[in-house]
């Protein structure tokens, strides 16, 4: 079993920002086949969403965004997910995204705060 001086194989960033007065903890991880992003203001992962790119041969890519656990009636969560998967795609990666959002409010300001904090610290 050689080659043991290896870094942990999953790059990860862990940081906090304040968004609209709420302390928000963010974690961004890059696995071999997914990005994982967690944004929480409530101490749990909250709602978990999944987004992937579907690429046609000759057409623009489309994106499939869905809730896999949690609130299914909050469109702002889907909007954040969609903005992030589009950002991933335009940065050149086709990997899907698992996003967890545990937020205290679902306002536009929070949406913009989360998206910009993640994009500034992206691993793609």
């Amino acid at each position, binding site marked *: *079993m050689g080659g043991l*001086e290896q870094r942990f194989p999953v790059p990860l960033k862990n*940081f906090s920002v304040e968004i609209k007065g709420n302390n928000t903890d963010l974690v961004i991880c890059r*696995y071999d086949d*997914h990005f994982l992003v967690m944004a*929480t203001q409530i101490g*749990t992962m909250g709602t978990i969403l999944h987004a992937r790119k579907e690429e046609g041969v000759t057409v623009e890519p489309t994106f499939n965004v869905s809730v896999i*656990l949690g609130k299914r009636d909050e469109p702002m969560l889907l909007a954040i997910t969609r903005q992030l998967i589009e950002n991933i795609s335009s940065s050149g990666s086709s990997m899907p995204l698992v996003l967890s959002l545990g937020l205290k409010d679902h306002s536009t300001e929070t949406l913009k705060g989360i998206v910009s904090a993640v994009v500034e610290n992206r691993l793609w």
Partner: protein
Amino acid sequence: MSSTSGIASDFVAASKSAVVSAGGVQVTTFTELVDEVTLHFQIIRLAKQIYVWIGSDSAKLGNLYAAAPTRPNNTVSATSILGGTSDNTGSGIARRLVLNTGLNIIVACNIPKNNPMLEANAEKKLIEKLITMGYSRPKSRFPGPELPSA
């Protein structure tokens, strides 16, 4: 950090554990040799929930499971939330982590299928690590120490 193999000197490097904290989130990562397979563990600890990733030779995300204690009898509910349709490697780990710790858990499991010994030993390593991080087995009639009231 101890390793499971007899060749101690080679495996000190592989068993390094790292902890990174920011805000209310603590990330612990470590690598262990379990049954001759190198397993990577990632524990992301939030105030009221824990996310765990177990990877083996690749750093793929694997199957995602959610599990939590369920009232009234502190039974455990577990469900697959991504992947896991044709194999349920890791669902037992999620379920038993909740049984042993009383925590609300999300598990991402990417270990080889059809190897129940490996699954059981990976789970043991995880529980050992959670105990060193301060989580303890809940008493039989009471919810675990980290269980939120909701």
